[in-house]
């Protein structure tokens, strides 16, 4: 995939498939350590130990429509080919956490791409799910928490087109801000 934000959309799709109601997305750009860390946590149905071990194998999937599961192996490959690492932790009935790391300056590292587009797509498709997106660049932090937005909106649905436009701009403006306002 051309953007890491597309891998994020894809992996969050697994969380939605596992019936998660709260999904956390953390992105940390650590310039000093030259490290990019992407973490996705959900409170979905989780996996037992045996299954957790298998998910990095492309020939494992619980789907019935296709024989291979591609989402996680592709993300693992993206991380490992950029001097990074990949970890997955899961507990049946509790949820799943995955963490992919990348050498920030690695020449093969795909750009993060549009997190605004990924978040708007997710919120539009699943306004019922709570998303917490946290993005750090150095010591600057930005948080988008749909639970907070829902509180402000009251009876207005999160997937209202005007609200989606606001979310897109809110993310884009804040990412610019934490990247030094460039």
């Amino acid at each position, binding site marked *: 995939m051309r953007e890491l934000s597309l891998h994020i959309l894809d992996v969050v799709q697994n969380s939605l498939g596992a019936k998660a109601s709260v999904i956390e997305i953390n992105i940390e750009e650590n310039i000093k350590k030259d490290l990019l860390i992407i973490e996705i946590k959900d409170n979905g149905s989780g996996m037992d130990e045996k299954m957790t071990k298998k998910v990095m194998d492309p020939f494992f999937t619980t789907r019935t429509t296709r024989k291979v599961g*591609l*989402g996680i192996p592709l993300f693992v490959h993206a991380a490992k080919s950029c001097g990074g690492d990949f970890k997955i932790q899961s507990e049946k009935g509790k949820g799943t956490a995955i963490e992919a790391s990348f050498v920030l300056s690695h020449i093969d590292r795909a750009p993060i791409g549009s997190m605004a*587009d990924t978040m708007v797509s997710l919120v*539009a498709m699943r306004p019922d799910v709570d998303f917490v997106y946290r993005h750090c660049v150095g010591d600057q932090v930005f948080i988008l928490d749909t639970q907070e937005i829902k509180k402000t909106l009251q009876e*207005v649905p999160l997937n209202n087109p005007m609200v989606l436009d*606001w979310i897109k701009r809110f993310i884009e403006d*804040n990412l610019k801000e934490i990247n030094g306002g460039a």
Partner: protein
Amino acid sequence: MPVIKSMEELEKIRKQAKDMINLRVDNETKTRIVVGMGTCGIAAGARPVMLAILDELKKRNITNVIVTETGCIGLCQYEPLVDVIQPDHPKVTYVNMNPEKAREIVVKHIINNQVVDEYVVPNI
């Protein structure tokens, strides 16, 4: 701080959007547009397709349509896939979508009630 300004703006949006709510229809009677969001779908361009559909619906002021996602349905070679499900009509599956074709489907199928045959899944 731009952050604070944005939150104030959200409050304004809430007041505007509140007036639209009364016009909402029951979920069961709504048309559903379902975008395939499995790995192949996303890799083939499902995200821009989804965003184009949302944008076209907004531009044309269509509020009685639900846009949602589904996982892999086993037609990966035809991704991006878009289903249009209207109450009392058989489901229509559109294949090899891109943002332009998806906008065309909103106009022709959703607004003018005409299935766009040339984009429908071939017999398999």
